[in-house]
């Protein structure tokens, strides 16, 4: 749309693109056939997934005792992985909701994939609360359903029950938010489809979207309200997850800083995962003109911001542990236990991967480098796994009573299930990248004229974005109502 845009802003869509070019570029990965590399990646992920399912069946069939847990450390890899996956999911909602509220145009090329990542990550996360139960077949007892036990209800005081509500609300709201945004894009694929089967599938998926002016008006209002609802939702979900720990009495867990600190960590790790995935996806789907260096840099800036918040939170925790005068807190945080004890490797992995490595992003050269971004994003994913592992396992390994001090050693089943969830995640993501429009074309088309390279260059030369026609009767320009 023709409106003033500061020349200082870098273009978000590179090249001389028209609306139709955007359609073509986004439809191409769906309409073409998968290449060999896709099949290799898919079968590796599928094998990992099946292995993980095997481990899950083994656990459920034999008992939780096949894991490395013991009577003092009742949570370790299960809840670590749960929190890790939930955390990864948060970036998707942040990109699609928070950045929408802040009118960040650069979100448009990445929001679809970031939301897909959210949904697939929350699927993985959702497995753990079920499979870490001793009697998972009774899992439906967490729901407040009228029953034959004199209507025996659940206990609403427990953060684990809040988790049930938080995760299921989060997953379902993210899903409808994502799907509603997909309707115009599925409609585009539907209207292009030549194969009857494809046409049928995308007709079904697009819910008969026709793109009327009224539909678009409602669509935008729904998106905005959903963004407004999803923003507090995303903050609340990881807050509630953090309360699993923060509302306990364990020194090292009982901490009021956890809710915001977990949320910051979630955004930190989530953006790292987006970087990992998009760094590859932009190449293999030939969408480099849409997911540009600029997008990578902006995401890196968010990473360094949230990484800074996490670093401040670590420092705060250690300061308060010293300041509190409680010997238990003191011991948990300041004793040799963490930095030199049996989990020193985990502690130092956390510091290295989470606090030190991301500082490289202060350098513009590194921040704008695809290779460096990829390496650092992997480091953060590892570091944030260790953060959850350290919080959970180190704290549980040395509690109030020295006679309960014990260590945790994972078994192959612990590891296998985690690998399985990674496989499952990539199976879903790879299928998604082949069948879904990975960029929200309807949204990118709205910014083409204001932020496309071609139009930006033209408007710098004073050429209007509107093609010249002989308009005799129509007076006035279209500027008045165009905010974005």
């Amino acid at each position: 749309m023709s409106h003033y845009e500061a020349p200082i802003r870098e273009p978000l869509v590179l090249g001389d693109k028209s609306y139709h070019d955007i359609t073509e570029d986004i439809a191409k990965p769906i309409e073409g056939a998968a290449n060999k590399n896709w099949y290799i990646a898919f079968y590796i992920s599928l094998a990992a997934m099946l292995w993980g399912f095997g481990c899950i069946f083994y656990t459920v069939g034999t008992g939780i005792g096949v894991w490395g847990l013991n009577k003092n450390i009742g949570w370790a890899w299960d809840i670590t992985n749960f929190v890790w996956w939930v955390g990864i999911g948060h970036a998707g909602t942040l990109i699609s909701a928070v950045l929408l509220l802040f009118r960040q145009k650069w979100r448009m090329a990445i929001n679809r994939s970031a939301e897909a990542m959210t949904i697939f990550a929350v699927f993985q996360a959702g497995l753990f609360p079920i499979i870490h139960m001793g009697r998972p077949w009774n899992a439906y007892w967490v729901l407040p359903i009228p029953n034959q036990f004199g209507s025996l209800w659940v206990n609403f005081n427990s953060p684990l029950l809040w988790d049930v509500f938080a995760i299921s609300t989060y997953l379902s709201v993210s899903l409808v938010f994502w799907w509603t945004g997909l309707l115009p894009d599925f409609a585009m694929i539907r209207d292009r489809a030549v194969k009857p089967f494809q046409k049928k599938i995308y007709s079904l998926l697009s819910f008969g979207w026709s793109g009327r002016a009224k539909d678009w008006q409602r669509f935008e209002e729904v998106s905005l309200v959903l963004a407004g609802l999803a923003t507090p939702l995303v903050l609340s979900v990881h807050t509630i997850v953090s309360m699993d720990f923060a509302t306990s009495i364990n020194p090292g867990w009982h901490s009021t800083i956890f809710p915001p600190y977990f949320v910051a960590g979630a955004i930190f790790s989530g953006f790292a995962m987006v970087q990992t995935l998009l760094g590859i996806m932009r190449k293999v789907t030939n969408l480099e003109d849409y997911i540009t260096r600029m997008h990578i840099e902006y995401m890196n800036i968010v990473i360094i911001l949230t990484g800074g918040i996490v670093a401040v939170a670590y420092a705060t925790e250690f300061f308060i542990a010293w300041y509190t005068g409680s010997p238990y807190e003191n011991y948990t945080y300041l004793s040799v236990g963490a930095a030199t004890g049996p989990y020193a490797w985990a502690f130092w992995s956390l510091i290295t991967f989470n606090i030190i490595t991301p500082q490289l992003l202060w350098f513009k050269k590194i921040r704008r480098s695809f290779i460096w971004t990829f390496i650092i994003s992997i480091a953060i994913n590892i570091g944030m796994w260790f953060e959850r592992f350290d919080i959970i396992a180190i704290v549980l390994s040395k509690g109030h009573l020295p006679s309960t001090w014990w260590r945790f050693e994972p078994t192959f089943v612990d590891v296998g299930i985690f690998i399985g969830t990674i496989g499952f995640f990539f199976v879903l993501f790879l299928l998604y990248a082949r069948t879904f429009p990975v960029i929200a074309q309807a949204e990118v088309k709205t910014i083409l004229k204001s932020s496309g390279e071609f139009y930006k260059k033209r408007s710098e030369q004073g050429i209007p974005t509107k093609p010249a026609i002989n308009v005799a009767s129509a007076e006035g320009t279209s500027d008045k109502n165009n905010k974005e």
Partner: protein
Amino acid sequence: MESSKVIHAFYTDDEVLMDAVKAVKAEHHHIEEVFCPFPVHGLDKAMGLAPTRLAITAFFYGITGLSFAIWMTNYMMIQDWPQDIGGKPSFSWLENMPAFVPIMFELTVFFAAHLMVITFYMRSRIWPFKEAENPDPRTTDDHFLMEIPVHNNEAELTALLSKTGAVEINIVDKH
């Protein structure tokens, strides 16, 4: 009043479309529908569409969710089985309220979000097996289509529309 024919005017640019909509409105023609591949900001105002009330419905759905959460926690935890679980006061709802806040919040969001989206789907008549109603497949790619009913004024309308930069003008039977 009901016309049996409509004009389909195609445009390939959103700004040209906006001007065309304004020109057509200025000539006091009724615009039946505009089909766009993406949201054209300000189009609803130019067409004179009433603002949507979906946000208002979301607010009331949210209130419903909050009320439901309050009723549920109060009934289950305070009225039905007022037990002592870990020393938490179950004498009145307010005393144990902080523990219910996460549930109240989540249910508010849950109701507001889902019921609003369902309302949107119902009002815009979109659901899984719905047949698409855009008259031309190009309108989901890069064409904009303005539909205007014809009342024996085909020549006048066609002249007007071609002046506004329409790339293609068809007169078709109303479906």
